[in-house]
């Protein structure tokens, strides 16, 4: 049997985390077939067919799937899953929304947020906000798996020529309707995949003060993150939240500014390669995981930081 991987996209482009999920899927020694369910997304079908690790693209084009409502996607995935041993998606808000629905209808216990694949039935996943890792074995015949995308590198995207097979749409239950999507447009790199992330916490004191963070982000070509406290306080939008219930990021450099380091925040960033903490409270827990800690008032430190960066001849992009 093969793997059915559910592509995340916006009907124009494939979302990059699909490539990370494909890498994860390739750790299981089986053919990877990718389901593309969307509306007028032929370009995405071509994009997926070029991924060398993909053997087949199942392309289902229907207005039913234009907005990826879980109620609508589920019957299609359940139907197709008959001939597959593993159903895989990313453990982001896309995959988290429909995968448990699929698993329940297949009477399968889903394995969420997998960070390592040992075999076709053994996996590693974080629990308790990443403060423990559980090695588990699934005894279900079919496996429904969500992959933590940042734990796997993106698969090469070009050079392949998988066949594209059209699939009929399934009936939809007509119990939910898409109204609107409010996306934050930004010139900066995406938080989930940025090489450098600079995040602000409650210590920023206002949304206005995030301009101090933004100017450094622009200089470093970094994404801007935030702690839950900063998002709750309305300083910045929810799409910037890093943590147990926000995004998990694994950049080369993570700069935490005015963030104390609550367990739930650490869950989203502590795998970063290099961690910097800037906080005026020398006892803040964030310092215990920081490679470089600076005990300082951020309102003095951030302008100095920008000055120092401006003095550098080169900055890696």
């Amino acid at each position, binding site marked *: 049997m093969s793997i059915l991987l559910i592509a995340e996209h916006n009907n124009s482009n494939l979302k990059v985390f699909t490539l990370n999920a494909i890498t994860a899927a390739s750790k299981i020694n089986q053919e990877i077939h990718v389901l593309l369910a969307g509306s007028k997304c032929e370009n995405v079908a071509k994009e997926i067919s070029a991924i060398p690790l993909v053997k087949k693209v199942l392309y289902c084009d229907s207005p039913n799937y234009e907005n990826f409502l879980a109620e609508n996607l589920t019957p299609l995935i359940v139907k197709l899953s008959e001939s597959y041993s593993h159903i895989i998606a990313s453990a982001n808000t*896309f995959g*988290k*929304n*429909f*995968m*448990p*629905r699929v*698993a*329940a*209808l297949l009477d399968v*216990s*889903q*394995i*969420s*947020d997998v960070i390592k694949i040992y075999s076709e039935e053994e996996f590693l996943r974080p629990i*308790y906000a990443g*403060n*423990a*890792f559980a*090695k588990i*074995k*699934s005894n*279900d015949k079919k496996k429904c798996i969500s992959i933590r995308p940042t734990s796997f590198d993106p698969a090469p995207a070009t050079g392949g020529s998988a066949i594209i097979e059209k699939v009929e749409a399934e009936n939809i*239950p007509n*119990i*939910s*309707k*898409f*109204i*609107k*999507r*409010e*996306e934050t447009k930004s010139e900066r790199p995406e938080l989930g995949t940025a090489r*450098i992330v600079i995040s602000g916490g409650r210590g920023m004191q206002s949304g206005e003060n995030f301009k101090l963070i933004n100017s450094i982000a622009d200089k470093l070509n970094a994404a801007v993150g935030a702690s839950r406290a900063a998002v709750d306080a309305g300083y910045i*939008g*929810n*799409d910037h939240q890093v943590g*147990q*219930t926000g*995004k998990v990021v694994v950049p*080369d*450099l993570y700069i935490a500014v005015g963030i104390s380091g609550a*367990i*739930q925040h650490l869950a989203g960033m502590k795998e970063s390669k*290099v961690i*910097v903490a800037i906080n005026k409270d020398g006892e803040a827990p964030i*310092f215990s*995981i*920081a*490679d*470089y*800690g*600076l005990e300082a008032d951020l309102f003095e*430190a951030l302008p100095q*930081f920008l000055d*120092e*960066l401006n003095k*550098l001849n080169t*900055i*890696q992009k």
Partner: protein
Amino acid sequence: MKILVAVKRVIDYNVQIRVKEDGSGVNTDNVKMSTNPPDDNAIEEAVRLKESGKAKEIVAVTIGEEKAQETVRKALAVGADKGIHVKSDGYIEPLGIAKILKKIVENEKPDLVFLGKQAIDDDCNQTGQMLAALLGWPQGTFASKIEHKDKFIEVTREVDEGLETIQINFPAIITCDLRLNEPRFASLPNIMKAKKKPIEQLNAKDLGVDISNRIQQLKVEEPPKRKSGIKVGSVAELVSKLKNEAKVI
């Protein structure tokens, strides 16, 4: 309108958990336990709907060992009218929990079911969606705002790209984000009153559903420790270290 709220007892979010040395799990002895944080938002939202006259009755349900009853009692103190405690020993996977909740929904016939979007212990983020699937109901997951309209509910969902708004029919499942509202604290008089509210006792084994676990926990281990870092004395030193030592900028 009747609302069912599912609440879970978990290790308090502020506790630094300890992995057992034999790798069999996480130490829960003498550890502070609380309601799973987004479940507090779930109960709060239900109580607000009742206060605004839109909901008539709130039933709070929990599944777990004897002490899980405290979690139901807390929900009653915040404003639920009736509690249900489904007794079970040991961990039940979200699939089994969803099957038990389905039974409760069939008995109680609520118009809405509120749950937290994720439990902070197993971090599965599954139960609400599974329950919705088993019932054939729509779901509003990761809800940060809900608006009750006449024939449907408008749910604003926190998604990776920002916010998404959907419209779902009754009856429905809502899984609550922490930003849905600010949960209140129970007042002392309400805590006293809650002691008189009824809690129905059920046993998970008697419900006639398959709650067998499908996932075998082979080993629980601590994540790799980070090497301890250093404190730098100035911004200039920090930038120099990042440039020349860590080589990341």
